[in-house]
């Protein structure tokens, strides 16, 4: 979507985090957060503020800046601090029209609660998994929400609101090294720093492989067990239509499609 006059004084805050590559485990820009930045850049490049709570020296943050940002706002706080109080304090002061986040972070707890906690604290409606902001008129935003299987749902929400951006949103532009290193990292200490005490009591380990669920046969008699052990997998064969007119066969296929509810 092209930025137009209507969005000229629209103010968007995109919250970004340090991502983690699923294979190598290296720090990178998080995929969903990068999509949120992309959406913000497409909507209102002037009014976009990219916000991060944490360490201002993280290299991965430069990857966001390389998307063409002049500066990043960083609320400096310790590694074990809770990001929500600092962010909600800052956002309640700056009062942006739209707050964009990813659905789930790629590092840390990745509970996906950020958008909801911010929405609850700031008193703003939360929209989840949006794929596109179609338009904004009369203080209302028309959104497309991503549903499973590539489907979309149209939603209408009044400004201001918090939205989490789905992977179905437009792919983020590449990050360029030059602009990334030139961008200003505007760090200031967070106003409130709350230590995450619950998290301190957890133990964290690399993910174990989950056991596959076994198909347990619960048979009462020996004969049933024998039958279950020796029975061939029931290739129910299916229905075969042959030597019939094509119209009859097509009708059978079409009836099945209707029954499955795939014809809309």
């Amino acid at each position, binding site marked *: 979507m092209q930025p137009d006059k209507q969005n000229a004084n629209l103010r968007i805050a995109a919250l970004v985090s340090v991502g983690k590559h699923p294979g190598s485990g290296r720090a990178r820009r998080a995929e969903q957060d990068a999509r949120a930045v992309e959406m913000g850049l497409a909507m209102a490049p002037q009014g976009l503020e990219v916000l991060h709570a944490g360490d201002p020296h993280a290299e991965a943050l430069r990857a966001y800046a390389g998307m063409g940002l002049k500066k990043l706002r960083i609320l400096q706080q310790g590694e074990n601090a809770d990001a929500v109080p600092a962010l909600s304090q800052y956002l309640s002061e700056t009062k942006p029209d739209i707050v964009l986040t990813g659905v789930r972070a790629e590092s*840390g707890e990745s509970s996906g*609660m950020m958008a909801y906690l911010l929405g609850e604290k700031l008193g703003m409606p939360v929209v989840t998994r949006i794929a596109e902001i179609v338009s904004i008129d009369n203080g209302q935003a028309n959104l497309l929400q991503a549903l499973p299987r590539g489907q979309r749902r*149209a939603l209408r929400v009044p400004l201001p609101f918090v939205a989490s951006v789905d992977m179905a949103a437009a792919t983020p532009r590449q990050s360029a090294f030059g602009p990334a290193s030139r961008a200003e990292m505007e760090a200031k200490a967070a106003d409130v720093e709350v230590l995450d005490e619950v998290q301190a009591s957890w133990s964290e380990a690399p993910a174990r492989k989950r056991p596959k669920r076994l198909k347990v046969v619960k048979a009462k008699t020996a004969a049933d067990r024998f039958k279950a052990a020796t029975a061939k997998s029931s290739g*129910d064969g299916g229905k075969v239509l*042959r030597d019939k007119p094509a119209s009859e066969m097509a009708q059978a296929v079409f009836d099945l499609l209707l029954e499955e509810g795939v014809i809309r």
Partner: protein
Amino acid sequence: MSDEIIRRDPRAEWIARNRLHPLHDAMQQAGAAETRGPSGLIRRNPHAVGFIGPNGIKRIDRMNGNGPAVGGRRSAGAAKEVELPLHKVENPDYYVVVVPDMVGGRLSGHDRDVIGQAHKLIREGEGAGAVLAVVFGEHREEAFDKAGVDRLLNITGEAYEGYTPELRVAALEQVEKEYAPKYWLLPDSVAAGFEIGCRLAARIGERPATQAWQVSSDEAICRGAGGTTDITRKTPRLMLLAEECAEPIDETRHEVLPLELETSVSVQAVIQDCGQVAVDPNAIPLGEAEFILSAGNGVTDWNQFHQAAEALGATEGASRVAVDDGNMPRFRQVGATGTWVTARVYVAVGISGAVQHLQGIGQCDKVIAINTDVGCDMVKRAALSCIADSGEVMAELIRLANAYRQEVVENAA
């Protein structure tokens, strides 16, 4: 005195002795239950045991009907539906609330796992707990009892149809006030569970365990950092559970007693649902498309194939041969070298079904094959196969689809 006199029926005795008598079978059947002799003892007739086999030899079934069916004769025991024992909870000490997704109005496998986890937590804890399922809107599930639902709170109403997360969370908040459940369990799924769970957690101020996959009453193991780490933590009150977190209930029936909220909730919803948007089926990634029309070597008229896909509203797919011949682009290829598809309905037109292709469609529910060869592997895999020329069937399908669309438009007008 008269009741002590034992009266004999010589004719009946005679018929019972004479296997060739026309009334012999009927008499034997009538008296098969239990007969008492003159002294009051139970008399078992050894001649009535078993049945006469196909070549006139008596056969005695010593497996009590559990053996394999002999000579087309179905044993009575196998077909009998087993009545599962009823699990009753009278006056529950606490509730464990489950909010199932109810995709398509029915419990999904994920929902059943979550209910199984709820029962596991109750077994581990003290006191008698009951599983309370909160279901929004109309549902089509008939087997709540076999899934393990002790109490059912069905919140219905016009307002709950469609996408109404705010209203649902308000109702769940009311459940929290009235029932004060010991645990809240939701499926961590894209369908609804994740969103509702997070909203509820933010509202009632609980810190949830997300993607929890191994939960006991004191410890929960959750996937963190995008599924690359395991976080072990104390079991919180609200949990979003991963798939296959516990075994579903399958050995008991449950009461499914209906419950109601004392006060109804009404919230001014801010998010307005404008309904689903029509999506171009070919814009949906092949891997997540719901309905795929796939073409192979047997398709000759490619324009007709594209027309058929458009008329049916299906995403296009192709076999390797069709792609190699340049009839379809590479990203449309289904199979081991292309995309592994998850479609619910997969129509294979003129595809014989190479192993690689069959691997690629392994997760599809309903496969329909249109092919000229009866013996091909795709026909063996398919739920419905048409042995005919693909061009003719597709022409008919286009006609039917267009007629159906026309009818829908006329009915709407």
